[in-house]
């Protein structure tokens, strides 16, 4: 990633270079890792090997990867209850992620955070958050901090369409706009807030809300990673160069339930709708088709990635299953720094 000229903000102009080729493959691999990671999470849940619940982002992989691949590893992200994708895309290791989800000592947060609080400071992931909208202030504060410390770091705040209901989002957009902070608000509109369609809870015009605060705003197809990547790169450039915050609305879809236990979904959305997205708007398929068409990869190449990822996941799951739980005397450590 670092090889790409940061001034080049359009995908077209960098297409087909060798580096770029590798990057596309890397991005595909990252997306597939998210998918396989979460399929395994679901499996761990249904086989009663994972404590608690967890929220799968399968179907939304292009947003996580497209955005995070536009960032440096010292850039920040804040994430949500549906945060495995963001975490992985920002550079986390799947074995340590699984370990965290199983509450093991070797997990990213020593098992204390779990799925909803996974954080990976080394890669700039300031943490998932179980309060809807709860990380909007944190991301904006990280951006203020970057500005005050004189680095050119950027902060990305991921949140769902549901977080548009939380007033804090508007409070911090106002401030980041006033102070031209390097923060990008990435709204993943997967159409639902738990069990309610977003149109029932969201009046007016989403990106208009950001624009009213003079926050630059764009709306894109979140299933097309090329679009996500090229747009985010542009917004990151803008933020890094001191040109202030932006808001990126990505239309996307979660294939699974709100959480792993949400199996019967027909009372709030139809099978047809689910299938339409899975079949015709799958971000991995769209990406793979494009790569094959543009001869960036061939079918055996894709299979190779698939089997690599598959075996990484198997190893990672096994690592986590085998890993020990935290020592009991860990329980009251880390209350204070």
């Amino acid at each position, binding site marked *: 990633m670092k090889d790409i000229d940061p001034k080049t903000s359009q995908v077209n102009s960098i297409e087909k270079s060798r580096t770029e080729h590798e990057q596309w493959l890397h991005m595909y691999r990252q997306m597939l890792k998210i998918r396989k990671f979460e399929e395994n999470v679901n499996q761990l849940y249904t086989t009663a090997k994972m*404590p*608690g*619940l967890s929220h799968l982002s399968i179907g939304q992989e292009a947003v996580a990867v497209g955005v995070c691949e536009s960032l440096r590893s010292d850039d920040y992200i804040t994430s949500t209850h549906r945060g495995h994708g963001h975490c992985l895309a920002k550079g986390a290791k799947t074995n340590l992620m699984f370990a965290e989800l199983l*509450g*093991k000592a070797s997990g990213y*947060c*020593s*098992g*204390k*955070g*779990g*799925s*909803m*609080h996974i954080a990976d400071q080394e890669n700039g992931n300031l943490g998932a*958050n*179980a*309060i*809807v*909208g*709860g990380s909007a202030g944190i991301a904006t504060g990280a951006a203020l901090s970057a500005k005050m410390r004189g680095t050119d770091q950027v902060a990305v705040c991921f949140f769902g369409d*549901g*977080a*548009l*209901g*939380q*007033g804090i989002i508007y409070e911090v957009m106002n401030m980041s706009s006033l102070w031209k902070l390097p923060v990008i608000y990435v709204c993943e509109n997967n159409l639902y*807030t*738990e*069990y*309610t369609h977003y149109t*029932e*809870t*969201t009046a007016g015009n989403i990106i208009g809300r950001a624009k009213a605060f003079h926050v630059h705003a764009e709306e894109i197809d979140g299933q097309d990673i090329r679009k996500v990547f090229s747009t985010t790169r542009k917004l990151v450039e803008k933020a890094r160069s001191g040109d202030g915050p932006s808001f990126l609305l990505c239309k996307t879809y979660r294939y699974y339930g709100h959480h792993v236990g949400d199996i019967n979904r027909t*009372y*709030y959305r139809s099978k047809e709708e689910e299938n339409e997205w899975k079949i015709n708007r799958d971000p991995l398929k769209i990406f793979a088709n494009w790569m094959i068409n543009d001869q960036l990869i061939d079918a055996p190449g894709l299979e190779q990635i698939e089997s690599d990822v598959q075996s990484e996941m198997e190893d990672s799951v096994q690592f986590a299953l085998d890993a020990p*739980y*935290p020592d*009991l005397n*860990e*329980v*009251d450590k880390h*209350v204070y720094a």
Partner: protein
Amino acid sequence: MSMLEMTEREITFSQAINEALAEEMRRDESVFIIGEDVAEAGTPFKVLSGLVEEFGTERVIDSPISESGFTGIGVGAAMTGMRPVVDIMFGDFMTIIMDQIANQAAKIHYMSGGKLKVPMVVRTNLGASRRSAAQHSQSLHVWLSHIPGLKVILPSTPYDAKGLMKTAIRDDNPVVFFEDKMMFQDKGKVPEGDYTIPFGVADIKKEGTDITLIGTSSMVQVALEAADHLAQIGISAEVIDPRTILPLDKKTLIDSAIKTSRAIVIDEGYASYGVTAEIASIIADGAFYHLETPVKRIGAMDVPIPFSPVLEDLTIPSSKMVVNMAKTLCGRS
């Protein structure tokens, strides 16, 4: 408790709440429910299932994820002739509505010199052990109990849940109603039809002579389990459930401690500056000249609730802790 004998019907805690709401909504048109996923979904815990079918989306209102906003809407509706039941999906989100509840709802009657009133119920939950980690497992009811103008209700059985919810809805003040997430499937005898349970009246769940165990919400069950164990070794424990902690039935608590001369208070909120502190200090004062041993407190461990099951389990009060402490107090350890 005479009603209890009149029924053999057993329903769950969740059904008891549902029934109370349904009956009150039938009785009084001004009662309505507002919150996230309360309608078709019937909340994540499915406690409200079926209500939207009977009462329609006009009275069972799915809101955006705007707890502060729709709690405020509840306050305004309550001030102008309605009786809203505001559903807050997790008790941990009290953090978000504190201004509307503590600075607005709680104070409006007093600040207006008694002219305005806020007959509103905030229905929410408490309790850990669901492996839901630090932001979905807290028991923050002491915050509300500190605010004059509010009432704070902690039912521990399906019977109490139904009767207390009805009282809450009919009360002319803002009432915060905390249900333990782990009790929704607990069954108990609940009469069909109407009955209410007054606020401020503790319930002696089990009589005893050697030590008083005061438990709130699901900690009543913990206390009862402990009492069973203690009975086996010849210690007779009295188990008291205050049922409402604001107002608090101080007299029943003090009288019991005077009788038994020993007391342990168990509550699932954090131990420090928690509910146990208030109750313990009331007993230590009121029963001072009768106590053989200090009043002891058991609350959640003072740590953000950890995700890992092996750690989380350590943080929650257990009947074993109660038994051990009771044995020590009774000189049996």
